[in-house]
C-alpha cells in the first residue's frame, strides 16, 4: 500500500513551503530535511525521542518500498535523518500548482508516510493540531481547502 494521495498532497505542500522559505536562508538544507527536522522537533516534545524514533523508522521502512532513492537514508539514535541523496530534485512549483508531482520523489513519500502514521494513530485533527506550531496556519488552511475541492 502506498502513501495516500491526501498525505502526499500535504507533504508536498510542506516541502514547497520549505523550498520557498529555504531560498531566503543560509545554509540551505534540502526541503525534505527542513520539513523532517521541524516535525522531529515538534513531535519530540510530545512523543519523546524514543517515540519519534520508532515512528520515523517505521515511516522510512514503508517509504523505501515506494522510493528506491531513499535506499541510503537512515534514522539515527536521536531521530535525525541522514543519508538522503546529495541533491534532491528541485520541486516543480508549476507542476505542484497543477496538482502534479513525481510519485517517485523520496522526500514527499517519506514525509507523507510520517504524516500517514500520525493520522492513523491520532486522526487528522490532532495530527494537524500537533504540527501547527511548526508551520503557519495557511499551510493547513490550504490543505483544508484542497480537500474541499476534491470532495
Amino acid at each position, binding site marked *: 500500500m502506498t502513501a495516500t494521495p491526501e498525505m502526499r498532497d500535504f507533504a508536498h505542500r510542506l516541502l514547497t513551503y520549505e523550498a520557498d522559505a529555504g531560498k531566503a536562508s543560509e545554509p540551505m538544507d534540502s526541503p525534505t530535511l527542513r520539513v523532517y527536522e521541524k516535525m522531529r522537533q515538534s513531535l*519530540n*516534545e*510530545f*512523543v*519523546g*525521542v*524514543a*517515540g519519534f524514533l520508532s*515512528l520515523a523508522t517505521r515511516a522510512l521502512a514503508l517509504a523505501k518500498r515506494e522510493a528506491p532513492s531513499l535506499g541510503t537514508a537512515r534514522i539515527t539514535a536521536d531521530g535525525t535523518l541522514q543519508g538522503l541523496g546529495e541533491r534532491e530534485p528541485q520541486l516543480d512549483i508549476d507542476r505542484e500548482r497543477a496538482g502534479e508531482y513525481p510519485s517517485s520523489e523520496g522526500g514527499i513519500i517519506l514525509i507523507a508516510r510520517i504524516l500517514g502514521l500520525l493520522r492513523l*494513530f*491520532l*486522526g487528522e*485533527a*490532532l495530527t494537524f*493540531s*500537533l504540527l*501547527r*506550531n511548526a508551520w503557519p496556519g495557511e499551510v493547513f488552511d490550504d490543505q483544508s481547502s484542497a480537500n474541499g475541492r476534491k470532495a
Partner: protein
Amino acid sequence: MSTRDKVAIHQLPTGVPGLDEIVGGGLPEYSFNIIAGEPGSGKTTLAHQFVFANATPERPALYFTVLGESSIKMLRYQQQYTFFDPAKLPGSIRFINLSQVVLENDLGAVLEQITKEVEKANPAVVVVDSFRTMVRKPQSDMDLQSFIQRLALFLASWQATTFLIGEYAEDELRDNPIFTVADGLIWLRQTAERNSIVRKLQVIKLRGQNSVPGLHTFRITNAGVQAFSRTFGLIGHLKNPPTHRRLTFGIPDLDKMLGGGVREGDSVLVAGSSGTGKSVLATQFIAEGIRHGEPGIIAVFEERPQAYAERATSLGLDLETPQKDGKLEILYLRPLDLSVDETMHSILDAVQRIGAKRLVIDSLAGFEMALSPGFRADFRESLYRMIFALTGIGVTILSTVEVDESFTEFPFSTYSISFLTDDIIRLRYVSIEGQLRKIMVVIKMRGGNHAKDIREYEITSKGVVILGNRLTNYQGLISGIPVRTDRLDAMEEPLPKPGTKSKS
C-alpha cells in the same frame, strides 16, 4: 481578623460531571493534588477532563508524560472522549514527554526540565503522569519525597494547579509521606463484584474546603468520568419544599381511607404479592396527578415503557399523551450494573426536566435487581438517601414492593424498609367463600389520620375499584384465611377529625 482579611480561594471546575459537588464546589486554585488508584481506574481520564476544562491560550496546561503508556497511544484513546477538543492542542494544552530525561538522568534533572518548561509557558495547570514510574528507576539522586516537596513548592509559587498521577494500591495509603505534601488526594477504586465492575472515588483529603465524605460511585462513559455524589447534588437545594397538601389517587374510597390522600412529599409504600394490583394503583396515582397538572415520573425495572403504557391504556388511563406533552416520563432503568446513585441521577434529571411532583418506583425488587451485586448490600442505606433527597424537594414517591404471601404473617416488605416510608398500603389475597379475593388496608400514615378499615377491591377495566363497605363479618382477614362471623352490620368506621394524630 475580619472576613475581609481572609484570602479568597478561587475554585476551578473539575470538568467531571458530579465531581464539583463532591469536592465542595471545585478544586482550589494553585492546589497540589494527587490522583491515585490502580491501573485502569480512570486517573488519566480525570486529569484530562480537568485540563480540557481549564486550559486557555493565555494560561495553558502542561501535561508531562513520563514512563508507561506511550503519548501517541494515550492521545489515540483519550481523543475518543467527547470532552477532548483537538483544537486546544498545542496552543492551550501541551503534552511534554519526559521519558528520555527520566531514563538518562535522575529526578533532579526531571525537576529541572519541568521547571524550565513551567517558567517558559506560565501554565495554569500542570499534570505529571505518572510520577510513580519515576521512582521505580533505581539509583535516583533525589528521592521521590524530596522531588515532590520541591515540585510542590515551585509550582505553587508559579500559580499552577497541579496534579500528580500515581498508581497506588489500597494498602499503600497508610503512613505514606508523599501524601502529606499534597493539598488534595483523590483516590479511585475499581473492584470486581461477581460479574460487575464497581467504581468508586473518595476525596481523602482536600485542604481549605469541605468535600463530601465517603465513597462516591463513578462511571467512565464516552463523555469521560462521571461521578455521582452520595448527596445526589442536593446539598443546600431545598427547592419546592413539601406542603401539607393531600395528593389523591382518584379512587374515592381509597382517598377517603387515606384521610383525603397522601401528604405531598411523603414516601408511600404499596406492598402486596404478585397480581394484587400494585402497578395498577401506582399508575392511577400518576394519572391522577397528571389530571391535576402535576407532572410525574415512573421508573420501571421489570417491563418496558411501551408495555407499561399499553397496560395503562387497557385500564382506561392514557399515559401516551402526557408523555408527548412533557408531563410524564417513563424511565426504563434495566442495566445490571447500576449503582443507586446513578439511578438517582437519572431520576433527578427527569424530575428537574419536567418539574415532576409525583414519582413511582415500580418496583423496589426490580430496582435492586438492576443494581450491581456490589451495590445491593447498600440497598437500604442508598434507598434511605434517595427517599430523603427526593421528598426533601417536594416529590411524592410511591414505591411498590412485592411481598411473599404468608398465612401466618403479614409482612409489609422484604427489605425492612417500612421505617423509610411515611405511608404503607398493604394489598393481599384472602380466601373467602371459595374465591381468592383481594383486600386492602392502610397500615400507616405518618402525617395524619387514616381509616383502619379492611376493604375488598377488584381490578376492573377502570383500575382498582373498592367494593362495598369494610368487611365486618369476617375475622382473621389479614391471615388470608378468614373465618366468617355472625356479625352483619358492615359499617364504615368514622374517620378521626382532621388534625389529630394517628395512633399507629
